[in-house]
């Protein structure tokens, strides 16, 4: 049985820890600046030790990964081989398909990375078991990253940078619930607001889709780049995976399958493009005709 003094001390410890927890969580959810800076300072302080640990343990972790990932790699190989066969089949299936593709590419004008600075970042391994809605990358403010910059792969949009430190950043994926982005559906040209609903799920776009619009499965979807959008225009986002019609409200909900493989990210390219910087540029160059607005 506990002594009265010990019980009192336990109660005091409990009260202090509960108060500390509430304070820390509240400050963090409010994005309290000094707390964030303190976290970054501690991380930077520990970084040399963890980097040394990485070097020491890398032979073990590499050996482990080569053992455990072997089956995955074999499956991926088979899947890629099947895809390649399919692509070969498509390529020789007729000039019509090639012409359609050319037309589509001209319309989309996909050359998202020309003329803008980019930096390649490695996606670092997650620390926990439950942190599935963002990915950490090994680039930070020292590499020119800012909050809001788009992250892409060769296939298309991955997400945007939401937290930046000196040598690491966090990227929120487009499928994260609540993630919103303006998109344009190639073909009908509808500009809509697409939202993430959860990792592994399709994006959903309802706001902005015209009632009578004829949207078909397989149509390409790119960023709209409309005023206020945090993304430059014409970055491939996905393809239309389906259209659901709400009979009562006569509204169409478009399901968009992301083209980037968000489940197996190893590297991402950060487009060093900031919406704020772009606005400032527009404001500088267009001050004569935009002054009154």
């Amino acid at each position, binding site marked *: 049985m506990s002594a009265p003094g010990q019980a009192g001390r336990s109660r005091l410890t409990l009260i202090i820890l509960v108060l500390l927890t509430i304070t*820390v969580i509240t400050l963090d959810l409010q994005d309290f600046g000094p707390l964030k800076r303190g976290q970054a300072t501690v991380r930077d302080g*520990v970084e040399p*030790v963890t980097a040394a640990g990485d070097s020491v343990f890398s032979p073990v972790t590499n050996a482990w990964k080569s053992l*455990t990932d072997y089956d995955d790699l074999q499956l991926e190989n088979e899947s890629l081989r099947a895809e390649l066969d399919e692509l070969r089949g498509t390529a020789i299936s007729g000039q019509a398909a090639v012409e359609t593709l050319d037309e589509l590419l001209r319309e989309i004008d996909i050359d998202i990375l020309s003329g803008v600075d980019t930096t390649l970042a490695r996606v670092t391994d997650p620390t926990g078991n439950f942190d*599935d809605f963002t990915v950490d990358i090994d680039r930070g403010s020292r590499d020119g990253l800012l909050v809001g910059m788009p992250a892409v792969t060769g296939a298309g949009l991955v997400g945007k940078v939401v937290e930046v430190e000196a040598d690491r950043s966090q990227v929120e994926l487009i499928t994260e619930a609540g993630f919103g982005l303006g998109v344009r559906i190639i073909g009908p040209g509808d500009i809509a607001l697409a939202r993430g609903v959860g990792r592994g799920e399709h994006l959903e776009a309802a706001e902005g889709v015209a009632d009578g619009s004829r949207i078909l499965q397989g149509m390409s979807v790119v960023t709209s780049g409309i005023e206020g959008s945090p993304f430059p225009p014409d970055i491939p986002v996905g393809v239309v995976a389906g259209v659901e019609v709400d009979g009562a409200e006569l509204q169409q909900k478009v399901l968009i399958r992301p083209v980037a493989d968000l489940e197996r990210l190893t590297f991402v390219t950060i487009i060093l493009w900031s919406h704020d910087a772009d606005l400032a540029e527009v404001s500088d160059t267009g001050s004569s005709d935009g002054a009154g607005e």
Partner: protein
Amino acid sequence: MLFRVGLVLISTLVLQLALFSELRINGVAAQLLLAASVSAGLTGGPDRGSAFGFAAGLLIDLYLPTPFGLSAAAYALAAGVIGLARDSVIERSPLTLLGFPAMGTAIGLVAFVLGAVALGFSEVHTGSTGRILITVVLMNAIAGVVLVPVTRWMWHANWGNGSTIRSSLT
């Protein structure tokens, strides 16, 4: 003693980040800082255990996208509960040394997931939660075999070292 506590905290953090985060089984990694917190509660009692758990949780929270302080609360709770529960054990046995870390890990993980969902981070709770929980519980139970003696050294404690329980607080 503070030096030992600091040393155990930093060593465990480095091991977690550099080694155990990458030694995954079916995508699940051991949570060494949680195992250390529970072991600290087991060998040091509820007060010292929960304080250690809070510090360990804050350290790992630096690297997680969930709210800062959530792991701290979960780890402190797990260590505190195990610190209280140890008093019900009369005889030390290998099962005790495996069972307490396993039980504490389950408490900590469930508290973490419930806390995250309550704070609006519902993505934390997926269909994989049960699988993650069982895997981490098993891994941490094994880690406890090493961490219980380590935390006993850290506290200069006797718990689990003899055939009867002698609280390090008395």
